[in-house]
């Protein structure tokens, strides 16, 4: 899934952002964010709602302007959004959080209108649209009205629209939020295919699995700041114990007295769940066997979500 070789071969940096900040009045949405992205890779922004992911995306494609501080630099394929907004928009495709399709027009007409924005000759546009509808498995819906499309189809249409001009940079702002697992997997599969064709992808998500499946590198954001960066599997390996014991039942959790815990076990209290992290699974098994009833707990391998939890000290869920 992660083609290390490919990444090494074309380790050419195409996005370089240094010290990017954005304030809305007194609220600092993004604070001194720096990152760089290699061509053809998928770079993820993981974080709860309000972490500043979307704002960071908007700054890149010129929907937001970053704060003017002297140390702030942006280089998106050689362009700065402040001075070369149009160039960046021309080489990018953007999938925004909300589906903003023209409800009055059908599927093909929606795409034809946008082909005009890219100055595509009508004949080329028609060919490209036919290809994209096929690619996103929407060919049967070519003449459908927008209101007759399901949520997943609308999302795929918005993605098709973003791909019209064969973008070198694809910006996906929560592309699969609210979609069912089938559509989600279909979209993931398409994103991987695009990456093989050297499309650079910037992705925001609050789904850990999505980040883990797609991203070559990712940053975890919290309150506008980058708190961690790395390859997803390394983030897990380097930042957290490999195993966790979860106790969801508050009463059972009181059976385990903190002072009796081995110092090799790290306890983490959340409002509705107790977690015990440890590098040895046997220690957790003993702990569970002596204090807890079967069915009241779960021992599993740690994942990105645990890393996130440790880093931000808060639970990640869709309501945030």
């Amino acid at each position, binding site marked *: 899934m992660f083609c290390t070789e490919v990444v090494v071969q074309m380790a050419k940096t195409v996005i370089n952002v240094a010290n990017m900040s954005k304030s*809305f009045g007194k609220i600092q949405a993004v604070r001194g964010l720096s990152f760089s992205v290699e061509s053809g890779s998928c770079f993820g922004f993981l974080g709860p709602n309000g972490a500043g992911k979307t704002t960071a995306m908007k700054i890149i*494609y*010129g*929907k*937001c*302007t970053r704060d003017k501080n002297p140390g702030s630099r942006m280089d998106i*394929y*050689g362009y700065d959004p402040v001075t070369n*907004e*149009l*160039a960046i*928009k*021309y*080489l*990018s495709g*953007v999938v*925004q959080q*909300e589906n*903003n*399709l*023209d*409800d*009055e*027009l059908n599927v093909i*007409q929606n795409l034809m*209108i*946008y082909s*005009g*924005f*890219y*100055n595509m000759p009508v004949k080329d546009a028609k060919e490209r649209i036919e290809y994209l509808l096929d690619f996103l498995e929407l060919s049967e819906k070519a003449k459908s009205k927008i209101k007759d499309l399901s949520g997943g189809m609308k999302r795929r249409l918005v993605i098709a*629209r*973003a791909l019209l001009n064969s973008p070198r940079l694809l910006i996906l702002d929560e592309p699969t939020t609210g979609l069912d697992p089938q559509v989600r997997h279909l979209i993931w599969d398409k994103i991987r295919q695009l990456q093989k064709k050297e499309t650079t992808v910037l992705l925001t998500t609050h789904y850990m699995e999505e980040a883990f499946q797609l991203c070559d590198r990712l940053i975890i954001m919290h309150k506008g700041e980058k708190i961690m960066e790395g390859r997803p599997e390394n983030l897990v390996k380097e930042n957290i114990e490999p195993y966790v014991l979860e106790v969801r039942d508050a009463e059972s959790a009181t059976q385990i007295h903190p002072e009796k815990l081995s110092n090799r076990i790290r306890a983490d209290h959340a409002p509705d769940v107790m977690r015990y992290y440890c590098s040895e699974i046997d220690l957790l098994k003993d702990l569970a066997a002596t204090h807890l009833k079967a069915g009241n707990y779960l021992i599993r391998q740690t994942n990105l979500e645990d890393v996130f939890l440790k880093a931000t000290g808060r639970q990640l869920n869709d309501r945030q």
Partner: protein
Amino acid sequence: MIDSKTLQYPPLRRRLYSVWYRHMRVYTRNLLSNGFPPFVEPFIFLVGVGLGLGKYITEPMGGVRYIEFLGAGLLVTTAMFTSAFECSFGTFIRLEFEKVYDGMLAAPITVNNLIVGEMIWAGSKGLFFSFAVLCILSAFKIVALPYGLLAPLVGFLTGVMFAALSLLVTSFVKTINHFNFYFTGFISPIFFFSGVVFPIENLPGPVRPIAEIVPLTHSVRLVRSVCMNNYKPVLLLDLLYIAIFILVVGYFAIRRLKKRLVN
């Protein structure tokens, strides 16, 4: 750095055209329901005046029959109404509810392109609505062709002028209901105090300067000259007023809407 030859984003006129084209496509999608009323409305209006009101107004107004006087005014009021609706309710819905602009601004188009394209579109609608009235007027032989054919151009200017104004109003509006103030408080009174239904020369002295400030007054004066094929140098001042109005109000509309679209 990318070779600049491969990165040819569309030129300005193309960007404006594609914004205009988007609106045109959405509008003509329901051609029958959108394209029919502009012809029916003036017809009903003129029939009503001709059969009813006209009998009581036997005195010539502004040197012509009342139906000719009123008919000429309708050529621009229709452009004013369509443009004001398009760039208030229409713009607000695209901005806040449908989020159409968010999508468009992710394509290679700047906010300036978007708003200027919007104004040109509203002008085009003004032109079309004026043309529809002209068709009815000439069918009733109220306006003589071919010189009446210039009237839709005045409709275009009127459309752009009210687009600029309505966009500026929209930039202040927080909820869609606020437009009621604009239409009841400004657009409707304009209909009566800009020389459409009676000559502004008949207004009491102190009120007259107010009529000169009202943008539609200048459109009305231009369109009357077109209908009577009688041009005076003073019309240059009306054209100048319209040009300055569009530039100044348009400038502030763009500046304020930009803050709303790009934050």
